[in-house]
């Protein structure tokens, strides 16, 4: 059965397989029992045969080039018929090669551990394509991002305002086009941004930010309220857009790892690993087993201190200072452990293409000991929080995101799992050593701040269990495989960051990065806050915000 599939793929798509045909992952096919990602592709082929103009299979990524006019139909089919979440949309400028811009729609087939990527070609002289946002709301921000960065217009988009460019940005300048020089200093022009308005008797607007009271990054929140309950919230971000994706195209691979690490400061391991995995996939390099385990341990360490920080933040925002202090104390213990084990409190500088840079094996006993005391203390902390009425009263039913909304908006990570979305990249698309370890994905249903706190607390225990398993079965051997040459190619890299699914798509050409698309979990989750706050009172906004744990930096890349 399995070899039949492999042979079919090899035979039928020979000309579409880029690189070594042996790269068509046989182990991936062995994992499939009755269902297979090719079944999805077969179905699309049957339904839309004439509209598919090219196919390529690379490991667990199936690329289908479809006719530009068919994008709405086929995306809709794939998304609604097969329930495959749309995890990223990005454009590339390939005018140099074939005179086209390309827009890629990445769908995740969770059950198959595979991705289907639909591609459309867009000609330079008519830079337009049909928007899919009305059928698949997830596409909203992506399409507006592509509009600003590449100048490709999504026709029929319900909200065609600028997303990333501000009103003082010159029209006709698209930073991610290849002919835009990285040193360009655009002049400022006059313009206006129109916010949505809610009118009515007794309706007031409360503008908050972009500069906030705490030491946090900038973002604008515009509330429309009638009394205390919030009728509407509109957020505006990208105040500190740094052009990270452009920067990637201008630095060598070894330096790019450090850039990825700094995209979202407290999710640095997840970003670095996702980037490294994409490059390793392109290079066809398998990292040593020991490196896989070390990466897993680091990723879970990162989850631990992030979740503790979030729990501490929720305690602060419900004015339970004692609980917050206790949680922060535990977080500090974890940060010190990080520092002891890796030399960096935020676990930086550990990953590299081909493996990890430092071994952590000698510290096994220390980590195990620390974590066991930590776990006891953490249990007590959660008992304290969940038995304090002033905490529970504030977080139960607050900031509810219903399952259908969460699904429509593709809410990821703990926030999604708290709304009953049973997805976790660690299980659905196993990477590093997750395939060999046992863990449960914690999902709750109520979708309120309480559920998000609970999911995090449960995940803390799972993380500790994962670290313990990984340390006990840590294989011996090298921690790094030398990656000498990185061939031309493209691949996805993905991890489950503490905030949720993080996706990289990297294309290499001539020994450098041609395009690197980063999809941080916050890019998805920010939109959820506009829904989560509805009918809640203004004083509950900080708690809802904290419970979603949103990153400005990861969003404003």
């Amino acid at each position, binding site marked *: 059965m399995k070899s039949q599939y492999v042979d079919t793929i090899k035979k039928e798509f020979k000309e579409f397989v880029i690189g070594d045909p042996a790269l068509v992952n046989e182990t991936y096919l062995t994992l499939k029992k009755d269902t297979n990602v090719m079944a999805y592709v077969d179905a699309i082929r049957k339904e839309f045969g004439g509209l598919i103009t090219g196919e390529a299979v690379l490991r667990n990524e199936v690329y289908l080039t479809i006719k530009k006019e068919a994008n709405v139909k086929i995306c809709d089919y794939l998304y609604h018929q097969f329930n495959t979440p749309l995890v990223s949309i990005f454009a590339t400028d390939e005018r140099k090669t074939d005179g086209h811009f390309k827009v890629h729609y990445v769908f995740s087939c969770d059950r198959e551990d595979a991705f289907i990527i639909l591609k459309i070609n867009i000609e330079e002289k008519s830079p337009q394509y049909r928007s899919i946002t009305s059928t698949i709301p997830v596409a909203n921000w992506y399409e507006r991002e592509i509009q600003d960065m590449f100048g490709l217009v999504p026709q029929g988009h319900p909200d065609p305002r600028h997303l990333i460019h501000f009103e003082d940005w010159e029209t006709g300048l698209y930073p991610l086009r290849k002919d835009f020089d990285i040193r360009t200093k655009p002049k400022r022009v006059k313009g206006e941004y129109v916010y949505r308005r809610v009118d009515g008797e007794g309706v007031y607007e409360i503008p908050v930010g972009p500069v906030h009271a705490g030491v946090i990054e900038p973002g604008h929140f515009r509330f429309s309220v009638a009394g205390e309950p919030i009728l509407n919230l509109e957020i505006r971000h990208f105040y500190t857009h740094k052009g990270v994706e452009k920067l990637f195209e201008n630095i060598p691979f*070894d*330096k790019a790892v*450090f850039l990825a690490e700094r995209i979202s400061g407290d999710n640095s391991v997840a970003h670095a690993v996702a980037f490294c995995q994409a490059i390793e996939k392109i290079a066809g390099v398998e990292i040593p087993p020991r490196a896989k385990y070390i990466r897993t341990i680091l990723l879970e360490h990162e989850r631990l201190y992030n979740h503790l920080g979030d729990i501490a933040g929720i305690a602060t925002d419900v004015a339970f200072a*004692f609980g917050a202090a206790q949680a922060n104390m535990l977080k500090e213990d974890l940060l010190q452990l990080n520092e*002891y084990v*890796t*030399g*960096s409190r935020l676990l*930086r500088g550990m990953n590299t293409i081909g493996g990890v*840079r430092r071994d952590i094996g000698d510290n096994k006993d220390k980590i195990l000991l620390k974590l066991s005391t930590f776990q006891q203390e953490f249990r007590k902390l959660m008992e304290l929080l969940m038995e304090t009425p002033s905490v529970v009263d504030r977080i139960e039913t607050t900031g509810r995101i219903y399952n259908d909304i969460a699904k429509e908006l593709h809410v990821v990570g703990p926030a999604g799992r708290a709304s009953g979305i049973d997805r976790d990249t660690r299980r659905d698309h196993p990477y590093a050593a997750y395939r060999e370890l046992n863990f449960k994905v914690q999902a709750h249903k109520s979708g309120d701040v309480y559920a998000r706190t609970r999911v995090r607390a449960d995940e803390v225990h799972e993380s500790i269990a994962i670290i313990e398993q990984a340390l006990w079965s840590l294989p011996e051997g090298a921690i790094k495989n030398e990656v000498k040459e990185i061939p031309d190619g493209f691949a996805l890299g993905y991890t489950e960051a503490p905030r949720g699914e993080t996706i990289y798509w990297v294309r290499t050409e001539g020994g450098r990065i041609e395009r690197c698309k980063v999809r941080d979990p916050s890019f998805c989750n920010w939109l959820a806050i506009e829904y989560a706050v509805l009918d809640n009172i203004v004083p509950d906004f900080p708690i809802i915000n904290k419970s979603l744990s949103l990153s400005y930096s990861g969003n404003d890349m």
Partner: protein
Amino acid sequence: MLEILKRRFRTGIVTTGYPAVPDIAPPGFRGKPELSGDRCTYCGDCVSACPPGVISLEKVNGEEKLTLSYCGCIFCGRCEEVCPYGAVKLTQEYELASKTKDDLQTIIRRKT
């Protein structure tokens, strides 16, 4: 309430005496990189490896000058990793705050 008070007393004081009592970073800490004038051959490997580009090599008036600025240093340790002579080492030093930019530089030089 009683439970909170009990916990409060059990927790005791957790803050340290820093800065009155020095707080020494653990070995392997990614702190201030230091240059060794004796070992350095001015080959420039660290200059090209440095991700934020804060190491520079200049040749002026028959003198070679290697400057490392801590202003933009990200303490990644690439310089230490690529140096074939062990002339750069990350140390446990982390108290780098200063009032002038000049204090945030370390310079080694030799006559050519």
